[in-house]
C-alpha cells in the first residue's frame, strides 16, 4: 500500500485521542511515546498469545475484534471480548511475568497498538507526565471489570442477556454466538432461545 505511512499516522492520531479521553496528554508527550508503540496486525482466528507463554504486550484494539479465553478441561471459557478501543492482553502474565493461563485469539482480522513490558517500564521512567494517564486508564479498567463481575454474580441469565444486547448491539452482530454465550455464562441453547425472543417483535425490558 503506497499510503501506508498516512494510514499509520491516522491510526496514531486516533490513539492519541483515545488516550486523551482518560487524562491530559500533550502532543509533545504523545510524540515521545510513539517510538515505543508497535502496530501489530493479525489475521482472523490467530492466537496472539498461547497458554504457557509469558505475555510480552499490552494491546489496544485499533481495528478488529479479539477474545480472551481460559482453557478448562477441554472447554474454552471466554472471559473477555474486545473491539476497537478496548485493551486486551493476558494481564496476570504481563504484570507478574509468569506463564499465561489464558489465550488471546483474534475473531476478525485485527490490528493492535501494542506496547511491550519493557517499553512500558521505560515510558513511565522517561515521561513522568504519563503516570497520571496510566493510573486513570487502570482505574477505568478496574471499575469496568468490577461492574461486570458484580453483574455476573448478581443478575439472572435473562437480565445479563438483555443488558448486554441493549448495551452492545454491534457485538451481537459481530461475535459468534457460542463465544457470547460463554462470555455471558449462559448455556448456548438458552442463548439461542433468548435471542429468538428478542427477534420475535416482542419488546423485552430488563
Amino acid at each position: 500500500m503506497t499510503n501506508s505511512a498516512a494510514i499509520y499516522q491516522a491510526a496514531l492520531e486516533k490513539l492519541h485521542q483515545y488516550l486523551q479521553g482518560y487524562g491530559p496528554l500533550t502532543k509533545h508527550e504523545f510524540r515521545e511515546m510513539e517510538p515505543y508503540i508497535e502496530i501489530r496486525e493479525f489475521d482472523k482466528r490467530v492466537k496472539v498469545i498461547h497458554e504457557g507463554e509469558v505475555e510480552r504486550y499490552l494491546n489496544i484494539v485499533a481495528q478488529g475484534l479479539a477474545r480472551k479465553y481460559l482453557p478448562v478441561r477441554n472447554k474454552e471459557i471466554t472471559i473477555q471480548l474486545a473491539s476497537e478501543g478496548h485493551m486486551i492482553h493476558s494481564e496476570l502474565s504481563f504484570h507478574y511475568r509468569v506463564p499465561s493461563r489464558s489465550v488471546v485469539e483474534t475473531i476478525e482480522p485485527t490490528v493492535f497498538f501494542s506496547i511491550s513490558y519493557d517499553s512500558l517500564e521505560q515510558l513511565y521512567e522517561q515521561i513522568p507526565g504519563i503516570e497520571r494517564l496510566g493510573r486513570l486508564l487502570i482505574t477505568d479498567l478496574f471499575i469496568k471489570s468490577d461492574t461486570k463481575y458484580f453483574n455476573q454474580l448478581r443478575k439472572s441469565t435473562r437480565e445479563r442477556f438483555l443488558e448486554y444486547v441493549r448495551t452492545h448491539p454491534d457485538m451481537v452482530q459481530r461475535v459468534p454466538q457460542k463465544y457470547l454465550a460463554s462470555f455471558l455464562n449462559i448455556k448456548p441453547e438458552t442463548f439461542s432461545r433468548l435471542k429468538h425472543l428478542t427477534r420475535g417483535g416482542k419488546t423485552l425490558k430488563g
Partner: protein
Amino acid sequence: MFVYLNWAEPTFIVSTLFLTMLDMLRQYISGYVALTGEEFTVLADKLVVREFDKRQLLVRVGEVEEYLSFVVKGLARMYFHKGKTEMITNIAREGELIGASSSFLSGKPSYYYVETLEPCTLLSISRSNLERAYQESPKIEKLGRLVTTYFVLQKEEWELECMRLDTRERFLRFIGNNPELLMRVPQKYLASYLNMKPETFSRLKNHVKKRPVTGRP
C-alpha cells in the same frame, strides 16, 4: 461510632501507637514503591484513624464510598445480597486494604456492603485527600497506579481460579494460603466467599482434618 483523629490537628498527640500504624502502612507501601520520608509524610498528613466495633457497616449499598482504608487491626468483609443470600466478595485482614474500592474510585454508589467482623482500626484516606496527595507527589501517583493495577490483577486471578479450579481445589488452595482465616472467620462466610454450600465447606474441612494438607495443591 468511630473515633476520628487527624494528626495534622495540633490537639492530636502523636502516640507510639499511631507511629506503629504508620510503620505498618509504610511496610505495605514498600511492596509497591520506595517513598522518601518526605513523600511518605505527604500521605501520612492526610490520613485519619477510624475505629469500629465489630458488626458495623462501613458502607451500605447505594452509598458512595468516601474512604480507602488500610487495616491496622481487625477483619472486615464485603458482600451483597442475591435474593436472600449474602454473597461475600472480599475478606480483608491486617495489612490489607478494605473499602468499596470501585465506588471509591468512580465516586458512584456502591454495589456492596462493607462490614467489620471484628473490632477494627483503620488508617483511611478520603477521595479528596488522595487527589491532593497525587497532585503533591508524582511518586504517590505512581503508588496509586500500582495499587489499582494490583486490584485489577487480584480480581482477575480470583475469577480465573473460580473457573479453573473445582470446589475441592479452591478450598485446599484457600486454606493453604490463609490458614488463620479458618479460625477467625465464621465458616458460613468462608463458604460464601469460596462460592460453595456451607455443607460442602464443612465436609471438605472435616476431610482435611483427617489428612492435613500443607501449602498449595
